[in-house]
């Protein structure tokens, strides 16, 4: 059954569809929360929260605006940002920087498409100028406001805005023009 059909089942009140979507996207949701929080217990809480929100808002999903996976990860992102900010207010020193990237584990079978796309996004990130990547990562994964980034890096607010904007433009450009090797592997993706 495809993702959209699962969302329709959820909207009709079928809770088992949540379990099927968890099997497909639970790991990515947990990985994102873990990356941003560096705290397994908190990442578990976020994951539970995300799937409750997915369940509650199934009837708002609009297939014309994006994929189910994008929708779920977007909910995961906003939920994690809110938690990071709440925790930062409570314990500023613990969240004054991005958590270190955890070591990558082996991708399980069945996640090949995501892994290839993930490699393409990672590669695009690495091609961005370092100061732009830093600003973009602090804003996105660090959930920092522009003012917080300016204070942390000791640079003017306008410079932060400029770096995030240019970093995002470069990311988009590099995503649209992957290096040859990635383009080749990407071409082997089979449609779902």
């Amino acid at each position, binding site marked *: 059954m495809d993702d959209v059909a699962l969302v329709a089942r959820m909207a009709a009140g079928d809770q088992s569809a949540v379990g099927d979507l968890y099997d497909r996207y639970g790991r*990515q949701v947990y*990985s994102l929360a873990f990356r941003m929080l560096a705290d397994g217990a908190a990442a578990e809480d976020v994951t539970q929260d995300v799937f409750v929100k997915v369940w509650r808002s199934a009837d708002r999903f609009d297939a014309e605006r994006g*994929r189910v996976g994008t929708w779920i990860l977007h909910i995961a992102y906003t939920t994690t940002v809110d938690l990071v900010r709440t925790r930062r207010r409570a314990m500023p020193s613990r969240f004054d920087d991005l958590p270190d990237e955890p070591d990558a584990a082996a991708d399980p079978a069945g996640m090949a498409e995501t892994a290839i796309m993930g490699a393409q996004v990672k590669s695009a990130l690495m091609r961005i100028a370092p100061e732009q990547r830093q600003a973009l990562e602090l804003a996105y994964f660090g959930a920092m406001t522009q003012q917080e980034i300016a204070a942390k890096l000791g640079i003017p607010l306008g410079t932060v805005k400029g770096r995030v904007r240019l970093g995002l433009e470069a990311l988009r450009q590099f*995503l649209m023009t992957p290096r040859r090797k990635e383009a080749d592997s990407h071409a082997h993706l089979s449609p*779902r």
Partner: protein
Amino acid sequence: MHTCPHADEAIAYSLRQMTADETRAYETHLASCLACRLKLEEVTATLDLLPLAVPDAAPPPTLKAKVMEQVAAEPKASRTAPRRWSLPVWAAAAVIALAFGTYSLVRIQVLQERLASMERAAPVERAVSLRGTESAPAATGRFVMAREGNMTRIAMEAEGLPPLQSGEAYQLWLIKDGQRRSGGVFVVDAIGCGGVAIWLPDAVEFDALGITREPDPLGLQPRGPKMMGSI
């Protein structure tokens, strides 16, 4: 070059970096600005790919049972309305079949093309200078209008306007034979700069322009004092 001076605000909005007031003002602007809705979709589609770059981390095997327990305890919510600026970009079956990362790339490309076509600016048909009334003696501004097919693009930028209170907005009015039609709402930054840039779905005509200070951004007719007018 951006079609709208608010275009870059899509980034702070998508990153949830705006204050509640800024978010409200931006969402009000979105409702009337096609260029910004496209820009927001494009920025969001790009940012939404970043979770794919995160290192894989395995959740505990017990987590699924916890999720299902939580969901079982949740009553199903009643139907809610979708976001009012929801923007279908296409509905092609071939695209629908793509996996979500690839889909996002195609979507970004479509959005970029639409933005680029808007930015190939139509020639300006009418340009008007604006000046402040005695309520805003330092205010100056400029308004331009261009047509493309049956659509009219209007853009206005002002500076030197007084700061607004929370919830208030400035509103541009197009006046024809004494009738006022809204040309969009805007807020101003710390130095009183702000503006609108919107597409209207018809051929707009006007004799004069006015800008009022409104108690909220929702009015269909002016309720607050006139702050600027066409020269």
